[in-house]
């Protein structure tokens, strides 16, 4: 088991390393550089000033050297400084990670809170009108453009009703973006719950349980839902890893200060250390999350635990 974990960690490490090198090369191969981007609005930058700036930032070195230098620094735990603002990349990322994490968790929370009951309802009413209606509603959530929904929610809750604030980072601010995200992903959860439950319900042991005369709700909640949760956990893992990458559009609409906005800003500004820092952190968190999901998976399924 220890060997397995060690092997996992090594693979993860190699993956992240490969991502750093590959992304580094790709970023530098794309035309345009941070200095030009930075000077775009400056009235007085001359070519000489810009050349000097490039030299200072090491941007005149060959691509492979820049990538090698960067990789070396990352291995020593140094993500470098942003080109804009000359701030430590790690600090900026750490500042936002909690926000992104909070939004991911609460968005997921809404998705589960809505999706599991909907999927459950659809499964027990399988093939009937209720099933159809529930599934259409769930799918509708994923079909609405998030920014559009966001604007409408702001208009409704912040302006017309005055219940919730528009921007900021308090707990009341998270409600609207979390709701938007949750509606988007609830369809996925509902679908998964529905099909997992239907599958479980057709298993022999459920029939046995029913035959034994157990109360229907007990059969459903105790005997059916728990095994169905295993499939749901897989989806949750996928969605969560995905949410961690930041929801650029949602973050923009709700002025949520998360990692996605930071990443897009960095891309527009060609801020190489910032872009790469994002990729490093993101790739790492995806790897970590998928590892944790595997472990959780093991806990939920006794057969897996034995192995």
């Amino acid at each position, binding site marked *: 088991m220890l060997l397995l974990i060690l092997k996992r960690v090594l693979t993860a490490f190699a993956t992240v390393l490969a991502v750093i090198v590959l992304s580094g090369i790709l970023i530098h191969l794309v035309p*345009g550089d941070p200095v030009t981007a930075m000077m*775009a*609005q400056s009235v*007085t*930058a001359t070519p000489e000033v810009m050349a000097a700036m490039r030299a200072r930032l090491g941007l005149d070195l060959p691509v492979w050297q820049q990538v090698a230098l960067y990789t070396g620094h990352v291995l020593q735990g140094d993500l470098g400084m942003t080109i804009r603002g*000359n701030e430590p990349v790690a600090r900026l990322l750490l500042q936002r990670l909690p926000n992104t994490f909070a939004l991911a968790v609460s968005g997921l929370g809404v998705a589960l809170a809505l999706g599991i009951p909907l999927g459950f309802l659809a499964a027990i009413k399988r093939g009937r009108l209720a099933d159809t209606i529930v599934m259409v509603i769930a799918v509708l959530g994923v079909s609405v453009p998030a920014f559009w929904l966001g604007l409408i929610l702001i208009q409704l809750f912040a302006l017309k009703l005055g219940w919730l604030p528009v921007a*900021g980072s308090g707990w009341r601010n998270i409600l609207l973006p979390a709701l938007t995200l949750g509606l988007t992903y609830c369809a996925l959860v509902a679908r998964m719950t529905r099909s997992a439950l239907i599958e479980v319900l057709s298993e022999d042991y459920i029939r046995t349980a029913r035959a034994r005369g157990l109360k229907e709700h007990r059969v459903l909640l105790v005997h059916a839902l728990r095994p169905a949760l295993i499939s749901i956990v897989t989806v949750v893992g996928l969605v969560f890893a995905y949410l961690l990458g930041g929801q650029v559009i949602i973050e923009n609409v709700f*002025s949520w200060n998360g990692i996605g906005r*930071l990443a897009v800003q960095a891309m527009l500004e060609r801020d190489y250390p910032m872009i790469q820092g994002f990729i490093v952190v993101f790739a790492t968190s995806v790897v970590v999350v998928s590892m944790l999901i595997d472990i959780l998976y093991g806990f939920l399924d006794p057969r897996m635990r034995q192995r």
Partner: protein
Amino acid sequence: MTSSIKSRLALMAAATAIGLAAGFSAVTAADLTVARSVDADSLDAQKASTTQSLQITNLIFDTMLTMDKSGSVQPGLASEWSMSPDGKTYRFTIRDGLKCHDGSSFDAAAAKASLDRALSPETNNPNLSAWGPITGSKVDGKALTVSLSEPYGPFASFLTSIQAAFLCPSSFASAEFKPIGTGPFKFVSWTRNDSIQLAANPDYKNANPLIENPGKPHIDKLTFKVIPEAVARMAALRSGEADLVEPSLEEATDLKNDSNFKVYAAELSGQQMLAAFTWKIKPLDNPEIRKAIGMAMNRDAYASIAFEGLVNTANCPVAPNLFSTDEALCASWGVKYDPEGAKAIMEKAGYTKDKPLKVKLLVHKLPGWDQMHQIMQQDLAAINVEAEIETREVAAFFDYMKGVNEKTDGEPAVWTMGMSGVDPDYLTFLWKRPGFVNMGLNAEVDTMLDEQRKLSGEPRAAKIHEIEKYLMENAYAVPLLSPGWGWLMASNAKVEGFKMGFMVSLLFNDVTVSK
């Protein structure tokens, strides 16, 4: 020159006394929240390049000189200044008793330290070239003496601009920059892309002629929030979450007519919007074709529809209100809106409805501009020019234009841009080869641009007019509108005394918030 400054100082001292007396009763301690679309990218005034950054640094730091509404230069950190007869030496007397936010005093030595840092290549100052041909500086008692290798006319104007902030040496004493200045607000905290917090500087003494309040700003806390989405910003204003916001153009007129809100426009923005051409590429190398395209542009429609009537048409390649700008004169040099005449020119050149001239309309994203480009596209279609709009993000756009302007063949393009500054010298930055994004013209223009820098007063104005006339008669530029970006603010009616200064600087010294 010197004497007039002294008399002005005396006047100001009197005003200060009155202001103080009047001020106490009016002041209500209050906090103000401002919502903008974009965050600052740096609070180091010598490294920042965007307007959004400089709007903040301008509150923390002061400038050596200031400018009044008429465009004439006034004292700032320097209580008086003089220029040697050959125009190569400037002497600035630093005011007495200036205090930095950390308690240290700001004197001539501090000013020299800040100047040295601004000029040091280590700093990577994006505005380095605008400081002019400075060869050295020295401290002389209370005064700072700056020497230049040759006369530099725009120097004094530049020293009033938000790009020429003077920092307290303690801000750059350690490796990590701390925004410590002498300005009306102290830096408290900054969460990138989220908010910047400032607090009133209790020791502040004002020198800016645009400001009435002589001392500490009336508001205690000033918070800048970033709300990228205009719909959300408007919701924040209406719900009271923010007091002052960059409004959406679409709603600004409505706010203007609503007694619950106020709308502010920066008349002194120094902003100017232009249409330009890839004039090295056929058939735009022909001034007649360029003129025809200029004649097709219905600038009134751009102002009234795209900008909801909130901006004015502009006639010069340099913004209104700046030194020597003469709108009437420029109008006589430039093209007039005449779609019929333009169509005739195009048809004569062989471009008909069935065989139109195909061009790209290269633009970058900004509110109002997007709508303007759509109308422009229709305008051009009316004279048999088929324009395809290509929009880019600001940073990517100018990077891209650098390549486009270098080319001598390929697809011809019409493009739009904006420029802002406190002095017409930015013509040098734009048009002197290689020029901004390679838009530089020719040796003749280069010479004229160099000459104007060495002149001052009337002769300089005449030289600038000569350059403007050349640009417009050859239709290298079509002036469109002024101002054009970020020049609008809106507040609820409780906010009093907010002003916008040169280059869209935000002035909060006089702001009070009634209950």
